């Protein structure tokens, strides 16, 4: 597997311009003869589908929800970064670039991150033009807030639902094109495989989730914007439908999978209440702007928060990281929380939780100001916990939230399979080993609105339009394979439910490949997962037919893929013998702080599928840092 990142030469500020000039253009009259298949309708997919259609390409767009508007991007709360420097507080493209590289613990590609910072400013313009009601000040201009890992105020937000508002903006653009007939939308349709013709991605095989029909779609290029794989842990802040299926099946067709072990654990989620729990709910990180994180100083202090006097409280983030305090980056804040809980100072019945306290800011700014900023988050918290965060501190605990790893892509967002492009959370590109808050929305929209429209043209210009039809044998064989798997899942009729297996996998992943990892644990996981997988294929119980809506069947297919993917994750975690960002190997630390090994691991690990039951091959793409010099990441 050859990994050519195809980064343009020249100074970093000019790389994107240089590439846009190098890229061949498709003659406007010919554009409509090319068909692009976009899988995913989240921020990345919707913005890409709309933008490509506006350019004149025929687009087909797919999502498994009943409407493209429900893509998981909808759930994003906190905000989106942009180097607008409207605050005049010293922000700049360079600073956003620097913060992101540093926040990613120096495991991201400089050129991509710089381009992201450059494009961030256009995203806000585009969003506002398409009707996104960002928060504003009385002067009528846009408001900003600060977010973790940054000392400038560059985060644009829309109350507590920035994701929904941005997605509705992209969805509106997509809907406009659907109305114009330039985009064909396929909702309740799940992509189950990629079809390669002469080594190029020329189509996909999907299952209509309502009729059960397995169908082939041919195109001149395929774009995957299918989101992250956090649900490999079963419990996460991701929507229930989030899956690895699309990217995993692409991986099995030859796309390299980069840094699968990089997962982000978000520090501010609502603690689990019982084992009936089906998902965890995030409390936006923006809360850390005004909330102070603390636990009791002495162990096993079971008094109510109000009864614990000031001097017996340990505001550990402010203590450990004076300059960033409660706004320390996620990986650091999460581990710090885990530490105090391990010390037996965790709060709540389970002892797995810390306080996020608004007492002081309510005293300082007044209840109304706080309500205006976080009203709906407090509302959500009260609903779930039946506790009033205005009068008593929130209980929070870290939870799996985001996956930095994903399909490997070059500077043009093209995977190792020609013609297969990967956008948004599904690719590995911009966040290194840890993503800073409010930067995933930015990346998804940058990829979809402003990168793919150029780079895909460069590929298509070299392709004969509409060369491939679905009647080719390649499609038949792949479709047959998909149908087989469905049949197999329904034929087992064992004893354990799909969720049962999923939960079991989740427990393994969380305990062995979660917030802290070590060799022994990972090796054990690598024994347990294959065993669980074997049992799954022997004993899973999936009822109903393949010819109707069958949600257990959908789940079963996704869990089957997680059961294979989880193994790759652990393998990657085992091989990366260093601690960096979200990947914390207990063997490599200085009392709780991650210790990187830039000598041997300043690289991207890219995994190549070597066939069924074969161990995958590990390749690396070395990372050069010419503009930000490698340093120990400190927020002290």
């Amino acid at each position: 597997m050859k990994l050519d990142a195809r980064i343009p030469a020249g100074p970093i500020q000019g790389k994107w311009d240089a590439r846009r000039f190098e890229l061949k253009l498709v003659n406007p009259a010919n554009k409509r003869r090319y068909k692009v298949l976009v899988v995913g309708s989240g921020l990345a997919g919707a913005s890409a589908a709309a933008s490509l259609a506006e350019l004149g390409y025929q687009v087909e767009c797919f999502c498994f929800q009943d409407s493209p508007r429900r893509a998981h991007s909808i759930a994003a709360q906190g905000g989106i970064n942009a180097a607008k420097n409207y605050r005049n507080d010293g922000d700049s493209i360079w600073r956003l670039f620097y913060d992101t590289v540093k926040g990613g613990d120096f495991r991201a590609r400089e050129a991509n991150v710089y381009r992201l910072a450059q494009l961030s400013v256009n995203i806000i313009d585009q969003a506002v033009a398409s009707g996104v009601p960002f928060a504003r000040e009385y002067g009528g201009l846009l408001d900003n807030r600060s977010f973790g890992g940054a000392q400038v105020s560059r985060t644009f937000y829309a109350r507590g639902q920035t994701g929904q508002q941005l997605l509705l903006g992209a969805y509106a653009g997509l809907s406009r094109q659907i109305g114009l007939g330039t985009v064909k939308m396929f909702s309740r349709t799940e992509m189950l495989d990629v079809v390669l013709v002469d080594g190029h991605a020329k189509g996909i095989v999907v299952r209509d989730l309502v009729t059960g029909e397995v169908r082939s779609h041919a195109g001149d290029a395929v774009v995957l914007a299918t989101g992250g794989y956090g649900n490999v842990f079963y419990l996460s802040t991701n929507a229930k439908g989030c899956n690895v299926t699309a990217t995993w099946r692409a991986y099995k067709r030859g796309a390299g999978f980069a840094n699968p072990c990089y997962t982000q654990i978000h520090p501010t989620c609502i603690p689990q209440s019982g084992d009936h729990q089906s998902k965890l709910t995030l409390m936006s990180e923006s809360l850390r702007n005004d909330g102070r994180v603390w636990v009791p100083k002495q162990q096993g202090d079971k008094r109510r928060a109000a009864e614990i006097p000031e001097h017996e409280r340990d505001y550990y983030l402010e203590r450990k990281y004076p300059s960033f305090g409660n706004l320390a980056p996620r990986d650091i804040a999460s581990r710090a929380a885990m530490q105090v809980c391990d010390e037996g100072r965790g709060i709540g019945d389970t002892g797995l939780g810390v306080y996020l306290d608004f007492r002081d800011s309510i005293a300082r700014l007044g209840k109304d100001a706080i309500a205006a900023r976080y009203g709906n988050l407090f509302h959500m918290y009260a609903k779930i916990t039946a506790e009033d965060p205005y009068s008593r501190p929130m209980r929070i605990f870290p939870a799996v939230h985001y996956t930095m790893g994903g399909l490997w892509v070059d500077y043009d967002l093209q995977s190792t399979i020609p013609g297969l492009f990967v956008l948004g959370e599904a690719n590995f590109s911009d966040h290194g080993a840890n993503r800073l808050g409010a930067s995933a929305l930015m990346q998804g929209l940058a990829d979809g609105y402003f990168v793919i429209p150029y780079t895909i043209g460069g590929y298509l210009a070299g392709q004969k339009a509409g060369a491939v039809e679905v009647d080719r044998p390649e499609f038949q064989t792949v479709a047959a394979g998909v149908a087989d798997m469905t049949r197999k899942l329904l034929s087992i009729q064992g004893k354990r439910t799909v969720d049962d297996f999923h939960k079991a996998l989740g427990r393994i992943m969380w305990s062995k490949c979660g917030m802290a990892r070590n060799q022994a644990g990972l090796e054990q996981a690598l024994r347990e997962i294959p065993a669980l997988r074997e049992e799954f294929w022997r004993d899973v119980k999936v009822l109903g037919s393949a010819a109707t809506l069958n949600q257990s069947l959908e789940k079963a297919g996704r869990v089957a893929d997680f059961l294979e993917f989880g193994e790759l994750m652990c393998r990657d975690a085992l091989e990366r013998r260093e601690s960096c960002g979200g990947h914390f190997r207990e063997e490599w630390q200085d009392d709780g702080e991650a210790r990187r090994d830039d000598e041997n691991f300043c690289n991207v690990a890219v995994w190549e599928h070597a066939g069924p039951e074969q161990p995958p091959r590990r390749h690396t793409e070395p990372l050069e840092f010419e503009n930000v010099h490698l340093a120990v990441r400190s927020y002290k």
Partner: protein
Amino acid sequence: MKVTLHIWRQSKASSKADFAQDGSMVRYELDHVSPDMSFLEMLDVLNEQLVHQGQEPVAFDHDCREGICGACGVVIDGVPHGPERGTTTCQLHMRHFTDGAEIHVEPWRAAAFPVVKDLVVDRSAFDRIVQAGAFISVDTGAAQDANAVPVAKADAERAFDAATCIGCGACVAACKNASAMLFVGAKISHFVHLPQGRVEREQRAKKLVAAMDHEGFGNCTNQYECEAVCPKEIPVRVIAEMNREFVRARIREEPAAKSVGGHG
């Protein structure tokens, strides 16, 4: 706690043309329900139980499970999204039901929302309404600087109040006339309070209303039931605004522009 459920089970999808039902309300007993469970988690438990008994689990739409994607939604004892105000089904917790409660669970009922299976309905009518004109016609890249046009905070807030609609369809399910006017009103209100959206206000009002009528939703008779069940508490003010926008658009329309307003 224990609950007794009466759930609508339907295996064959009904279509707009054919609403013939082969469905019925089926009774299920469920023990070991925790008050901290969400309503959907309670259904999860039921489904696990059903699978073990060899019966097909109950199909219901859901995804984010935190009240924002708009996928979930069932009618609980006659009220869409259940007894709590401003709450989606996934955010409704069992602590709001008494031990031993009898709970009736049904899908949204509307000609424009045919049942797909059990509690799952087809809400694509909403997407088609949006496609008809609930957008600002701006191509990617054509935007000016975000701060070039100031927007009064009050306007931004009003637009936002409408923009919070999650497209769940509860308004239609609750309305005795199965009217979608709260949803469509929300779309119109969202854009009309923003300078960027005001440019196309007349086209939009006419196209959305035409599309809405085309889908076979009922007509609003100002019963305000929709507002009461809307998980985002969108006020019926948006319906008044829609009426105003529509009339304004029709009155100002040039004879030449007659054709406009055709179905999406």
